[in-house]
């Protein structure tokens, strides 16, 4: 108890330096966790989304552009291709399912993405405010149902009627039977999909005046991934219509290389900050070790044992390290709440083991430094 009392009062005396080094360590902990978390969340989301679709097919376009647009709605949509191409490819024996996506309609300037329920499942889009049922889901209630993106939630409400038109803006001759009902609001994705309306492509096909015989791209799932190369080859080299055929997993892997590089830079920065704060703690301790020699001798004269003096050197840094880890984790948890509104993907991941490894490493480093000085103190006390 006396050691804890002395440690507490000693830390209280050096509050400024103690807080500075503790906050620096806490900051580096939070930074490490946040970077690691974002990296893991984005990678996990990309892996899940890309694993749902084996191929993406569209009119000739840049492969990366096609992947980014088809999976994340980032960039510009690829040029349209005839719907018959989709129907033909969907009938291939190797194809388990194919889902078309068309982006040629709008409602009051808001882009309408037309597809099937499988598109929502593939992109893991969840909806809230279901009409006629509770909970969340993605199933269209009927062919005239539509979901609105999260950013449009303040403009439309479930049950509201949407009049969908061809092109980017309403025209005077828009058909009267193009009304769709808002069924629900999609949960935030952090992508341009949040500004889109999603409608069932079959419903649009059956609507007089806006029915279209084109699609912009299609997502394809094969029965067997072993046939991936063969199907890709067949569509690229032997299909009568020129097509872009992309395997999203391999494209994202190339993209992942740059993402990993950037992540590595951030991680290195965090590690440097962590090391600097550990060094700051070490130098604080070393300075205190020298400054406190007289104090230690005084404590020895009143009967302090070597292990108690070693404890005096050990407890302070340990408390500092634990406090820094606690504050760092709290900051990290708070930051994920804010990050969730900025990058909604980060909400999808829990604290992974890799982050626990970082925490453990930092704690053990602090503990090691403290043990080193405590050992010096113990040895010094015993050898006089």
């Amino acid at each position, binding site marked *: *108890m*006396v050691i804890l*009392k*002395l440690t507490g*009062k*000693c830390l*209280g*005396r050096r509050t400024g330096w103690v807080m500075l080094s503790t906050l620096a360590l806490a900051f580096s902990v939070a930074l490490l966790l946040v970077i690691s978390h974002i990296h893991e969340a984005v990678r996990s989301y990309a892996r899940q989304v890309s694993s749902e679709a084996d191929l993406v097919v569209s009119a000739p376009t840049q492969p990366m552009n096609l992947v980014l647009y088809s999976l994340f709605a980032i960039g510009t949509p690829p040029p349209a291709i005839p719907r018959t191409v989709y129907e033909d490819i969907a009938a291939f024996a190797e194809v388990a399912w194919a889902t078309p996506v068309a982006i040629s309609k709008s409602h009051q300037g808001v882009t309408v993405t037309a597809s099937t329920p499988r598109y929502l499942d593939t992109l893991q889009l969840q909806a809230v405010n279901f009409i006629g049922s509770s909970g969340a889901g993605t199933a269209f209630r009927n062919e005239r149902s539509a979901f609105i993106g999260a950013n449009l939630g303040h403009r439309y409400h479930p049950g509201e009627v949407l009049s969908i038109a061809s092109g980017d803006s309403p025209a005077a001759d828009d058909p009267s039977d193009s009304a769709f009902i808002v069924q629900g609001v999609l949960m935030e994705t952090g992508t341009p999909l949040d500004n889109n309306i999603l409608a069932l492509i079959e419903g649009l096909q059956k609507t007089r005046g806006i029915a279209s015989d084109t699609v912009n791209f299609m997502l394809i799932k094969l029965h067997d991934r072993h046939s991936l190369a063969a199907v890709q080859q067949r569509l690229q080299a032997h299909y009568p219509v020129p097509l872009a055929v992309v395997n999203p997993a391999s494209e994202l892997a190339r993209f992942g290389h740059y993402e990993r590089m950037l992540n590595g830079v951030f991680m290195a920065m965090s590690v440097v900050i962590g090391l600097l704060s550990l060094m700051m703690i070490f130098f604080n301790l070393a300075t205190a070790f020298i400054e406190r020699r*007289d*104090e230690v*001798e*005084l*404590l*020895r*004269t*009143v*009967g*302090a*044992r*070597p292990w*108690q003096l070693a404890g005096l050197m050990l407890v302070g840094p340990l408390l500092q390290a634990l406090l820094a880890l606690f504050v760092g984790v709290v900051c990290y948890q708070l930051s994920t709440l804010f990050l969730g509104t900025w990058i909604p993907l980060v909400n999808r991941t829990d604290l992974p083991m890799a982050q626990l490894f970082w925490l453990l490493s930092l704690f053990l480093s602090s503990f090691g430094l403290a043990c080193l000085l405590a050992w010096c103190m113990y040895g010094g*006390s*015993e*050898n*006089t």
Partner: protein
Amino acid sequence: MEPFPAIAVHDLVQRVGASDVLRIPRLVVNSGEIVCIRGRNGSGKTALLRLLMGLSRRSCHSGEVLVLGQDIRHIGVSALARLRADAIGFVLQHFPLVPYLSAIDNIVLPCDFSARRTSGAQKRSETVANDAFRLIRKLSLQDPSRLAKKAGQYSAGQQQRFAIARALIGKPSLVLADEPASAMDSHGQEAVYQLLQQECRATGATLICTTGDDSGMTGPEGFDRYLDMGDVNQAGELRW
């Protein structure tokens, strides 16, 4: 009855590097004796007291040092710490107090390390704090509420007073005071030496007090025996 030696030093040689710091053929202080050791700077007064506390025993080259019957050179680390905590009160010449503790916390510090000192203080004044206040009043500090300030906020003389109270609290068997009044005026010095002598006589403790007063000035009075460090230590004075 034959007096029991509280301190017995025989044929002691202590070296730092190639220099002899202490060379003491014989020094015996009996239990309950009140002794003043005078000497110039560098005569080895502090070195002797540090050795008796076991703070520099590894530099002993030869000889025997018995403190309260314990062989300081060969006693175990834990037993030495226990001996210091339970039986010895020590006043360091420099750095008298732990700077981040309050004055009262500094005074009662030995009781945090020794149940025996706690018990001794409680027997005398019911509580440890009361015993601290009793000692402080004898050192001309009347207001106990002023003891709550951090040690570093007091003058050097006041810090020495608190260090003396710390050495005396809990009735130690041996009190070693290294120039305990060096930062005080003559009035303060008189009060300090009187308190040290009174307390040690009242409890039967042995007191060894060093002082630098050796140049014809009036030194502290009332000690049973006065020793000249030049006679005790044959290593001679360290001169730089």
